[in-house]
């Protein structure tokens, strides 16, 4: 039998607000346990939440970017359950009326434009973390993450493959960074997702029984987990078994999913409207203002790069796939002659990204800043240095921390890397080389013109050695040919 996989995702986006969703605590990672907490985050008696308007604005921004219906009035609800990392004994979330509903996202995958409909997205607070094995005989609780604002995006079950789910997530990952509402750092859990997976015979309308895989926090795991889970479903069904509706965890080491809890064990969360908070009101003014200040998003940017800057589809795709790369590119471009767009793109795509990867650096931490790239390209354009010298400068800069913004010109100056463009001095070198290599000169003269072209390589090599690579290659080539033709 032919099977079709049906997938729906719940994506948790941690919002990059300054403070937490309901308190003034710093929304920041990597600090000492419980450092970023106030009595509100600790659930102390007598504390009350106050909504962080920045989080609401970020939610609305995303909704607008996804063409969703923004709720002008939405509510918070309480989800009640006991857990040590949940200080109040309930999580404040949006159950009944979320911040936005609907919306869709389009992306290319499997050589087709895929359209995924969203069900809704809701705001909620994150829980803290239990820490085991650090304190003898005790578990620790770190509430730094408690109260961190999350936006949970829930899709319709529109995916038909793990690859589509993964491509969607990459799109969301890029989008939240474009909107500057999340750092999207999956290794820190800033973006994570739950996948609802079911399978059905191709042609069948009704959905199969689904299982939910929790807490997937890398693109690779998402793809692997879904593939594995779908295969498991098919195997169970084809062996005459039935799928239990349950929550499962993915173990990337063993590449398998394991049952976490069945539907019967599921908590009764006793949702009800959060009485400590008023409805979230989103005014038409805010919507209008956010629409007006909406940044250029990935697709629009890519189209512009191709149409106005003449970049290829491939180059434009990579440059816009990550807002940090696009921002870098545009910063370099802003300091350059517009005709250098392609050259700048090439430097970023091949030398910069490759070099950063080699040195395990993020683009945000690159020692080479856009101004350096702009300088290099300008110096090449104006024949101050050769591309070859430029590459060696680039490699050197990549390994130098705390560079001066003028570092490119400084290196050229200090190391005397300027091209030799003076014909008489180049002519002198040529005479020397020709004199030192009479047999090669004779061979050149004897050769047919088609061969001659190749044979200049030898002389150029010798000359570059003599000039330490600084000779202007075009001029050198011209002078060499003239000299060879004149030679006895």
């Amino acid at each position, binding site marked *: 039998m032919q099977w079709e996989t049906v997938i729906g995702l719940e994506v948790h986006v941690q919002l990059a607000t300054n403070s937490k969703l309901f308190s003034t605590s710093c929304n920041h990672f990597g600090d000492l346990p419980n450092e970023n907490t106030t009595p509100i985050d600790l*659930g102390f*008696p007598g504390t009350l939440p106050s909504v962080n308007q920045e989080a609401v604005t970020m939610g609305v921004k995303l909704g607008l970017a996804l063409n969703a219906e923004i709720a002008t009035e939405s509510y918070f609800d309480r989800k009640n359950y006991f857990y*040590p990392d949940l200080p109040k004994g*309930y999580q404040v979330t949006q159950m009944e009326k979320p911040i936005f509903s609907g919306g869709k996202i389009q992306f290319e995958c499997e050589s087709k434009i895929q359209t995924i409909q969203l069900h809704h997205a809701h705001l909620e607070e994150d829980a803290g973390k239990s820490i085991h094995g650090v304190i003898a005989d005790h578990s620790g609780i770190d509430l730094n993450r408690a109260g961190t604002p999350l936006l949970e995006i829930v899709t319709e079950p529109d995916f038909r493959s793990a690859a589509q789910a993964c491509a969607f997530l990459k799109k969301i990952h890029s989008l939240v960074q474009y909107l500057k509402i999340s750092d999207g750092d999956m290794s820190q859990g800033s973006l994570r997702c739950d996948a609802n997976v079911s399978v059905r015979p191709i042609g069948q309308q009704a959905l199969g029984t689904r299982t939910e895989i929790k807490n997937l926090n890398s693109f690779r795991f998402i793809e692997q987990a879904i593939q594995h889970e779908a295969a498991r479903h098919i195997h169970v069904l084809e062996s005459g078994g039935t799928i239990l509706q349950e929550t499962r965890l993915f173990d990337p080491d063993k590449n398998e999913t394991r049952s976490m809890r069945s539907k019967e064990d599921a908590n009764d969360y006793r949702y*009800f409207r959060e*009485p*400590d908070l008023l409805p979230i009101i989103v005014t038409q003014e805010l919507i209008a203002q956010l629409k007006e200040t909406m940044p250029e998003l990935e697709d629009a940017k890519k189209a512009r790069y191709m149409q106005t800057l003449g970049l290829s589809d491939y180059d434009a795709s990579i440059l816009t796939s990550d807002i940090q790369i696009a921002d870098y590119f545009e910063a370099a471009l802003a300091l350059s002659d517009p005709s250098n767009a392609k050259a700048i793109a090439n430097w970023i795509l091949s030398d910069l990204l490759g070099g950063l990867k080699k040195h395990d650096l993020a683009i945000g931490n690159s020692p080479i800043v856009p101004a350096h790239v702009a300088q290099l390209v300008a110096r090449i354009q104006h024949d101050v240095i050769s591309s070859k010298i430029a590459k060696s400068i680039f490699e050197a800069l990549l390994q130098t921390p705390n560079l001066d913004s003028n570092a490119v010109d400084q290196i050229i100056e200090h190391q005397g890397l300027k091209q030799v463009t003076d014909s008489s001095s180049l002519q002198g070198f040529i005479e020397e080389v020709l004199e030192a290599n009479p047999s090669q000169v004779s061979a050149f003269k004897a050769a047919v013109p088609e061969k001659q072209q190749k044979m200049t390589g030898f002389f150029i090599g010798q000359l570059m050695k003599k000039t330490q690579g600084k000779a202007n290659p075009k001029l050198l080539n011209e002078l060499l040919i003239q000299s060879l033709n004149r030679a006895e």
Partner: protein
Amino acid sequence: MPITIVDIHKQPLTTLVDLIHQQKLQASEVTDIFLRRIKAFNSDNKSFLALAEPAQVLEKSALNAKLPLAGLPIAQKDLFCTQQLPTTCGSKMLEGFMSPFDADIVCATAEAGGVLVGKTNMDEFAMGSTSENLYFGAVANPWNPDRVAGGSSGGSAAAVAASMVPLATASDTGGSIRQPAAFCGVTGFKPTYGSISRWGMVAYASSLDQAGPIARTAQDCAYYLDLVNRPDSKDSTCAKHTRTASYPTIQAMNAETKPQYFNNKTIGFLPTWLAHEGLDPIIGQRFNDTKALMESQGAVFKPLELPSLFYALAAYYILASAEASSNLSRFDGIRFGHQCQNPKNLVDLYTRSRQEGFGSEVKRRILTGTFVLSEGFFDAYYKQAQKIRRLIKNDFDKAFASVDLILTPTTPTTAFTTGQVSDPVEVYLQDIFTIPANLAGLPAISFPVEPHQGLPIGMQLMGQRWQDTQVLALAHAYQMQTQWHLATPEVGEAL
């Protein structure tokens, strides 16, 4: 020159403030009188669960003499967080708990020159109508120690009635300010929901909880309300704008030579409820006396039918319990509060900490609340109760289109004998007159009328939301005509 004033402790707060401001009395001298009374009577009536250091109170009192509250000692109900004294909510669960911050009402009181003198006893987590606190001891009614003080703010009402403080804060979720005020013969005011910040008031039922004062007079309540009623960004449900002050209206009334405040006032009353079988006939009689007095002053009474009120009690106990079950989840034995010994595992830690820390009424309401919110029952209970709440609000809105205020008794009976009521539902019936104001968020005051057989009786005036001044002004008008609010029990008159 200072003058001699008899029975300083019996004077209303505003009288004492004036005398101190006019330098006819010294703040610390007045405070010392109250401190001595607290010392003498607290072991008997258990109004206080914690007391501030007297020397410190006196020192602050002298420093604050020129401020609006003139350095007078103010008691805080033990569910308002204070950094200086423990905040227990009358529960073993929070025995010895020190809050890292002060409630907004505590800050506002201190800023206005009130001096925190102690924390008053209460029903555990404000759930109850008797203040017979099983863990810390029951509050005795100053009028008769065999009678309960009412609840949940029984300690606050008793402390004012016994002239241990001129004013105490209290909280009212279903009548917890007004019912003990009625039982103890003092004036208790529950402002419009959202008037006073709930920041630092340990939550029982967030959508119903409202802080307010218990004092000798409506005038005192108005004076204090103006000082603590302020916007607070820490409480989203607190009104964003400062309400118009109430005290100037009261002062204007005092200045009138021929006060005619009841003229042109239409007051609603509820005949069906006055015929309720649970209503003590003497209460009905006092209601008629009060009505007659107001009518003689020019008020017009209008009978009202508010059919939705029949469901008020049921709706209240569903909604309040539901919110309580969630609000009290934070008491899990992990970060603060009672923790059981040697827990075997997480579930054992939760179970025993809560089992040992909470009393039976709190457990009853947590169970009720958990039940009404659970899957399969939510629609039948919680959702229905929310609908009833909306209907009640609508019924009141309609009623207030044709009446200025509504007069009812505060309680169906006078204070009952200690340990008399064991059936929780019978206790819940105590609240039939007070609960509607909480469900609709209305301002409501209980003021003393003529006592019966040595036991105080309270009448209640309710107004439309944000008509707090009107409610206070009419209660004040009544108190301008009567002396019942100035009667004090024979507690330690020798002092």
